[in-house]
């Protein structure tokens, strides 16, 4: 029996799964980008199957560099490749590709202003059961503080596809936070217009605004729809780009609804909520509630249960909206 014939492998199904798993959609986009541009090269940190890149490797053996479990070296290689005109796409685990190789990311990629795309799978508490070593709940704070960096948290697999393809147009490095090995409910239309740096207006309400990213977008929509039946009109913004932040959308929401809830799978310090709060504190002080993880290492458990434990869900968003309107 060869490896491809062994039972239980995801690979035969991975293209179908890419429809609702952002890590696989990103892997599909790597193949598409490589098809369009001969300078595109993928770098794996022992993440070939995590990103569904096995097929890509087989048909493009010269276009994927396996760096092994060595993120510092992988990040340095990416920078060096970029200086020669190549378009490296580094595929790593969010907790490791940010923290382990942080100095290479800061110096070799951001400071040296190289066009490196970083795909970061298992962002947030996707790996809740794995413990704090595998949680990436400070990654957005880190990446936001890197000059030259574009930071994207797609809301679903479809948006991941668009975001990855649009990195072609970026002049500097980018970070795209992705999910893990379970389904992410689709919340965007595959045909929907996507532009880096421009928030999606998903619900038009005027009473309160929920600004969400990533896996909190679906609960935000559900919360808005539930509150609509109580006569509360909730505006929902999918803030897929954390940096550069869509200032106009945030300031308009503050001016027009006067109350803002942010929701993200990240510590409430330094991420989406932090970015919105910093902007509003300067430009237009507005009452806020911030949904995210507290200043502690998260507990272990099934991801859905841990999300519920920390109030990363529809109910918490509804409560925050009501609290602001009380």
């Amino acid at each position: 029996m060869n490896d491809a014939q062994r039972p239980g492998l995801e690979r035969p199904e991975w293209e179908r799964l890419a429809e609702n798993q952002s890590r696989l959609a990103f892997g599909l986009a790597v193949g598409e980008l490589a098809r369009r541009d001969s300078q595109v090269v993928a770098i794996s940190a022992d993440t070939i199957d995590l990103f569904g890149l096995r097929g890509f490797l087989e048909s493009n053996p010269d276009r994927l560099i396996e760096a092994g479990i060595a993120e510092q070296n992988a990040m340095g290689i990416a920078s060096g490749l970029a200086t020669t005109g190549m378009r490296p796409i580094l595929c790593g685990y969010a907790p490791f590709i940010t923290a382990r190789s942080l100095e290479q990311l800061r110096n070799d990629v951001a400071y040296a202003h190289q066009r490196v795309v970083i795909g970061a799978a298992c962002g947030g508490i996707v790996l809740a059961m794995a413990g704090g070593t595998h949680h990436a709940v400070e990654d957005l704070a880190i990446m936001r503080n890197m000059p030259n960096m574009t930071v994207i948290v797609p809301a679903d697999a479809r948006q991941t596809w668009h975001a990855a393809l649009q990195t072609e147009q970026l002049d500097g490095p980018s970070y795209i936070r992705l999910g893990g090995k379970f389904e992410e409910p689709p919340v965007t239309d595959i045909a929907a217009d996507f532009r880096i740096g421009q928030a999606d207006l998903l619900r038009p309400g005027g009473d309160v605004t929920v600004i969400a990213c990533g896996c909190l977008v679906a609960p935000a929509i559900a919360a808005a729809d539930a509150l609509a039946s109580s006569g509360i009109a909730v505006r929902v913004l999918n803030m897929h780009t954390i940096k550069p932040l869509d200032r106009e959308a945030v300031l308009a929401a503050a001016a027009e609804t006067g109350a803002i809830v942010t929701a993200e799978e990240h510590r409430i310090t330094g991420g989406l909520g932090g970015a919105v709060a910093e902007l509003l504190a300067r430009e237009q002080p507005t009452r806020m509630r911030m949904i995210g993880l507290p200043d502690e290492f998260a507990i272990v458990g099934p991801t859905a249960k841990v999300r519920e434990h920390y109030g990363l869900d529809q109910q918490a968003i509804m409560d925050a909206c009501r609290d602001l309107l009380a």
Partner: protein
Amino acid sequence: MTSNFPAKIEALQRDALHIRRNVWRALHAAGSGHMGGSSSAADLLAALYFHYLRQRPDEPEWPGRDRFVLSKGHANAALGAALARAGFIDDSVLDQFYAYQSSFGMHPDIKMPGVEMSTGGLGHGLSVGLGMALGARMQNMDFRTCVMLGDGELQEGSNWEGAMAAAHLGVSNLTAILDYNKVQQSGHVGEMLDLEPMADKWTAFGWAVREIDGHDMEAIVEALDALPLAPDKPSLIIAHTVKGKGVSFAEDTYLWHNNLVTDEVYGRALEELGEAE
């Protein structure tokens, strides 16, 4: 070996002296700096910039240029001196070391013509150089990549990730040159965190290794001309050097890894180095 070889060596020795004098000039302008590691690297840099590297100073972004990465970025004064002598930057830049809004700070900045990577955090250059070498291979380009490593920085584990990967990937267009001056900021390397057996380590990691006296210009040139040292391996030249080479009070001591350069110190250093031309 051609008949003008001795003249070539003498010219390179003059280039090296020029670099050393300008290291002290830049440090004097700044008031302090890393004279030890800049001076130990001067002969190697002279041979690289005025013998080995194929570059076009009037076209610094020429895609076919050989790449040089100064991984031991604190020797930037020596790199700046080489770049000025090669014509990448104006000689007057050397007087702007550490100056307000200068492109010539303590560590190399990719924005300066001729600088291929911003370095300074130790243990970065080898991986970046590996990426450059892979970029050449993937694009069927014949440029070569050289990375100068410091010995102290080899205490950073990232180097060994890079060393392992470069051998695994078989990049013979990548050369590392170790400025093995045996002294780091707080003492002798062997006492701080010993790196020996150096050659055995790299050989075990899959590199082709040659050891030379890093102040013997003839040996340096011969080693560079022998690159790649093996057809399908990365090459390492271990250059045994003296920290602070050329100025007796600064030689082989951590006290002159980075120190103040007063008018008096500057005068004594230039006097010991002698006139350049």
